[in-house]
């Protein structure tokens, strides 16, 4: 089972955080800081694993990938395969890339909801339900259409956001 997904930049700013078990926001912040402290001390071209048991307790593994200014971090337990999760990060990033056409940190900053939607299509309650990035794309587009359609019904938009969100 996947325990958490985090995306943070090289300055330690959180860009995405999803924990599949409830944790208080304080605890989340503490964990993310703990992870970042280890991440930023690691050199390039070393393995993509971190000893996560000191941060997340027993039976936890952590795999991360470093892309440009972002760290993608997946935390999971012994019922996942490390290398498969590494591939999963690749799928996630590829999907983001297809979705935003050459994804960069700003895309993730400004498309909070969409990034979450993509992730939710892949991982459902800690279980991986979809590993094909084209399937994910299809579903995400459907959902966006549905959102837009449901907003378009509004005759007099109360807020500017109604017009802006795609």
């Amino acid at each position, binding site marked *: 089972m996947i325990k958490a997904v985090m995306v943070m930049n090289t300055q330690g700013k959180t860009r*995405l955080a999803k924990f599949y078990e409830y944790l208080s926001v304080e605890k989340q912040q503490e964990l993310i800081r703990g992870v970042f402290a280890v991440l930023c001390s690691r*050199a390039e071209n070393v393995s993509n694993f971190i000893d996560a048991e000191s941060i997340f307790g027993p039976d936890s593994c952590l795999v991360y990938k470093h892309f440009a200014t972002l760290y993608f971090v997946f935390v999971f337990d012994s019922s996942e395969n490390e290398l498969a999760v590494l591939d999963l990060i690749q799928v996630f990033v590829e999907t983001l890339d297809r979705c935003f056409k050459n994804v960069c940190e700003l895309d993730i900053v400004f498309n909070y909801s969409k990034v979450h*939607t993509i992730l939710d299509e892949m991982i459902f309650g800690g279980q*991986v339900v979809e590993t094909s990035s084209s399937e994910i794309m299809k579903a995400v587009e459907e959902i966006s259409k549905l959102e*837009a359609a*449901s907003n378009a019904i509004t005759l007099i938009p109360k807020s500017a956001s109604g017009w802006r969100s795609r």
Partner: protein
Amino acid sequence: MSGPSLMDSLFQRSLEDIIKGLRQQLIGEQAFISKALDEIRKEIKSTDLSTKSTALLKLSYLSNLHFHDMSFAAFPALEVLSSPRFSHKKIAYHAISFSFHDSTPVLLLITNHLRKDLNSTNEFEVSLSLQCLSRIANVDLARDLTPEVFTLLSSNKLYVRKRAVAVVLRVFEKYPDSVRVCFKRLVENLENSDPQILSSVVGVFSELACKDPRSYLPLAPEFYKILVDSKSNWISIKVLKIFSKLAPLEPRLAKRVVEPVCDLLRNTGAKSLLFECIRTVVTSLSEYESAVRLAVGKVREFLMDDDPNLKYLGLQALRIVAEKHLWAVSENKEVVIKSLSDADPNIKIESLRLVMAMVSEHNVSEISRVLVNYALKSDPVFCNEILGSILSTCSRNLYEIIVDFDWYVSLLGEMSRIPHCQMGEEIENQLIDIGLRVKDVRPELVRVARYLLIDPALLGNSFLHSVLSAAAWASGEYVEFSRNPLELMEALLQPRTSLLPPSIRGIYIQSAFKVLVFCLHTCFVRGGSIVPSASLNNLPAGVSASASYESFDEFSVENGADVTVVHGQTRASAPITKESIVNLLNLVELALGPLLGSHDVEVQERARNLLGIVDLTKPEVLNSSVQEKDDSEGKGVETSQIIKLMHDAFSKELGPVSLSAQGKVSLPDGLVLKENLGDLEMICGDIEPPSSNSFSFGSPYEEKDGLSFSNLQIKEDSEQSNESTSLLAEHRKRHGLYYLPSGKSELISNDYPPANDPTLQCDINDNDDNLVKITAESLVPKRKPNHGKPRPVVVKLNEVDEKPVAMKQPESRDGSLSGAVRDVLFGREDIPPTSSQSNLSNKPSSKRKGKEKQHTDPHLESKENVIDDGNSSSRRKDRSHGKERRHRSPRKKNFEERKDTDQKEKEKSRRHHGRHKSRQRAEEPLKVTAQTPVIPDFLL
């Protein structure tokens, strides 16, 4: 972005505005966020759902990425959820799924919303609802929504169905009774041909099997089919996970799967699947030599790979293999040892663990030597990692692998001098522990202690202070083994000891006390044997003298316990003359005088004690040295009397007493505990035991010497006056049965080979090849040379021998879940028609509200019918076969196991839903028969 403006009041800020504002940072992040939060609080009360949902979205953003509590928005989130619009629903579900938890007060209000969306025709709405359920479901939600989940499990939309399968995991976990409803359909999905559904189901089963593998043994044929047929790596990995849990439980199953796993191992191109195969073989199929060989071959490929991930995982796999097949490590030792200097800390630590796994009593000294040299060169973190693993490996099981303790003690000394060393406390414990346990090592211990004490540079390193305290204690306690007590005294009183914390300084002074008494005793009581040599001015000559003693080291080590005798006779050791005693006394006065005003009570007290004895003896010493040849016998005798008493007090070896000793003493007749405490006080006199535990204060050496400090304190107390010493002796005489004889339960192991092979001793350089060579030699079992020094006696206390029983209690929750699963899988045909069957269908419905009844009951009944009709006949057949073959399987084990689960169940039911109790009791007869796992004949 500006302050409050017309725009702000007219138009609500969107999430994008917030993000932009945060990025511009005009007024600082915190200020901006609190302003935004204020706005959100207002907006979220709005009656307009669009405004409300936008506010909720902004709030989720701030909560998710800036960690602000959003529990205040729980109810508004529910309101947004009730909106008919998809975009609102999505925002609400997003907010709810990461802010709701079991104690959210409005949690139960969500049930109907979820139910409505689960029944929606829009698959994305269903998906949102399921997603939310998978995050927040508690007992009530899981119970109330089980019927909906059950329906969705056979939905014809794949998108929904795979999510319904995934949500089952949470529903089962929270509400085990739902197994009775949903399990059958879940299993049906195992036969689905769609890879997505299959992946989802297999994922759920791998999670379930992780927690309680035994319950899923009957499904082995289905899993086997998937393993053989699967084209998807993802599914294969998950099935392998399941088999690695199941195989150890059922040897026939292991035999059956070993072939397909090996096929996968040979043929797959995917590294992830390959690694999973390796892991399955090394963890669960390690009895199959050929499979292990094959896996280790693949591990080797991983180790040779340039990808650090593969290398790391390869090392990990090797560590799992090492437990049962050490040859696999030795075959790959070059790589392992090269990895010690890898750039990646993970790889370094993993290879360190492997190197430590190779350690045996034959090669411990060589490996330690090389590792210590590595430690000298590496960064502080890894250095301490190395030291820590050496310490823990060597001390394992009461220094099981150490034969040559002299070597080990000097290694400890050496380790503490490594600049990055932070393992001071562990070294301290081991130094004292070895000193107490191993008599033969004491001369060497004193030598190492002196070596540490005389170096003033060490005093500045705060990590070493605890080591120094051990060294000070050892040099005081075993001063009779010292070759030059005067020099020790000088070290203990050197001016830089002011750098030490007071508690350790106290130990220094106390040790100085012991050394002084020893010197005086040697001089006065055994005075006749000492030739006064006025020409030797010992104190200043201490250092140079010690240099010359180095040459004796080899010699003295060889001679072991004879050291003192040898030196006593050869006179090479500094003879203690009257003159040197005078110098000594002056030194003490000089060094400790200022401490009489110390702010620390401990230091002041001990300094005062020491100066007290100096005051007492000094006149006598001066007196007798002046009139050496004259009479004045009377006074001299008196002084030596005192010194003799003191010396006896110190030299009495206090036997170790185990912590549980008192409990073993049966209560004597006529002794009424908790009465006559006045008598006790009389016995104890002025000694105040620091804690109730140390009632047996004659036994300061409890087996671990983290307590050494308090021990010293007690000891000091008992030595402060002669009265208390005699009281102590009296106490021992009276209550002798509370004391353990010191030499009890000693283990003598003979015929140990020498740890230091002379041929290898010379190569102390630290290149990799060297270690490779060393391990290569030592891993090949050598002929034991018989002339080796026997391993010294290691005193053990009964306490230590008892291994801590680390039986982990399985979670009680799983108990009831697995119970439910077993009921469904095995128990169906055994159910006595009257009790459980009726219970199953009646009880839940009677517990439920009327309107749910219609939902639940048809499902329940139909499902039970399916099981009874479809499976029971075949299962029953299997079962009888299984039973015949299982004649050997110990019934007792099953029985115990059943008791165990029952107990867990009871616990669980008591805790969570006591109202099910009666029902569970009714099921108990069912379980008696249901526990034997049945593997269909297919597998045989």
